[in-house]
């Protein structure tokens, strides 16, 4: 006997037959330890094999199953049915992205923005192999480690009011990743990223609504990263204009 039967209200969009999305309700008998993804898998396996959604790891690592659950961007593999107050649960594709099909969204815009911030270690002087590895102290690692937890689930983009209103905005996850590398003691690429990060679609488009950090399932705190880059960028500007010279911050 199931723990409770829920009504899963799923936004459907089948581009070959629908002009616009519509809600379909499924009655799903859930077990106590089920997450919303389990309920979707039940629908797929037993009720309606045409339902489309992304998932892979089922343990909050792959970042594939981000979706709007009762209006909040969340990982469906991390959201327990028992923690949701109502028996009727509304599931929609991530907000602020075009819908490809059902719960699948088009992420091309995010992928393009991610590349623009050069999210990898950049060295001005390449280190020869015989020089050994780049050493890093635990304190230097602690400075940016929490930003490495991002799994690109895009829940932050779905929560960000600025991205909703200004689609050109680079957005939380891409900027947080830029800060992750800027703050890495092994990296020398801050100057290269600055033109994009501090552009009119970068950090200065953020109004610090903090919604990205509130919804982040990995506690990355993109809002904090962006504010810290604003401070670093401002300090650099003054150093440049007062002739004090820059140092890596």
């Amino acid at each position: 006997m199931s723990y409770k039967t829920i009504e899963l209200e799923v936004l459907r969009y089948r581009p070959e037959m629908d002009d616009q999305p519509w809600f379909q309700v499924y009655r799903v008998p859930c077990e106590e330890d089920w997450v919303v993804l389990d309920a979707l898998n039940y629908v797929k396996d037993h009720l309606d094999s045409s339902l489309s959604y992304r998932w892979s790891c089922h343990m909050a690592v792959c970042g594939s199953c981000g979706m709007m659950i009762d209006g909040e961007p969340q990982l469906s593999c991390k959201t327990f049915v028992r923690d949701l107050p109502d028996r009727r649960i509304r599931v929609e594709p991530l907000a602020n992205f075009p819908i490809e099909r059902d719960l699948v969204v088009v992420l091309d815009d995010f992928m393009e923005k991610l590349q623009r911030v050069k999210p990898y270690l950049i060295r001005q002087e390449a280190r020869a192999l015989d020089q050994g590895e780049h050493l890093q102290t635990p304190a230097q690692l602690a400075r940016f480690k929490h930003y490495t937890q991002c799994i690109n689930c895009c829940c932050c983009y779905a929560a960000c009011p600025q991205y909703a209103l200004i689609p050109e905005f680079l957005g939380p996850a891409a900027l947080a990743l830029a800060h992750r590398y800027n703050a890495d003691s092994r990296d020398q690429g801050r100057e290269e990223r600055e033109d994009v990060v501090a552009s009119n679609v970068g950090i200065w488009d953020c109004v610090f609504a903090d919604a990205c950090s509130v919804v982040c399932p990995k506690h990355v705190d993109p809002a904090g990263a962006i504010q810290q880059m604003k401070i670093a960028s401002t300090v650099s500007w003054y150093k440049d204009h007062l002739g004090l010279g820059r140092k890596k911050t």
Partner: protein
Amino acid sequence: MSGKSYVKPFVREVSKTTWYLARGRDRLHMAHEASCVFVGLYALLLLWGLRALAAGPEAYQAFLAALGSPLSLGFHWVALAVTLFHTVSWFQVTPKAMPIQIGEAFVPGPVIVVGHYTVWVALSLFILFIGGVFHG
């Protein structure tokens, strides 16, 4: 062999005027943003006073007299309440913008928030002191 393409992404429009009404945190954010209007208005009031001071004793006395009007007092109470809300909601998020790392650990957020309140009180007392409030 290639099948027919059904790529037809559906874009959900977002209202540019009412987007913040749906969620409590967005409403709070917009309230914080709107409260800066009163901060700005009060800055203009202080500039007006400075201009009156530069214009001479009579102009400054007229400015002080205007401050005592019921309209001015009402504005001051509203501005005080709104500015306090602006300050508190800003101080709450300061640990995110300016984390302090000591060794491998970060200073707890509440300590940074309390630090801001401490500086705020100290500066306020200093301004009251140079304003002559404590001279009897």
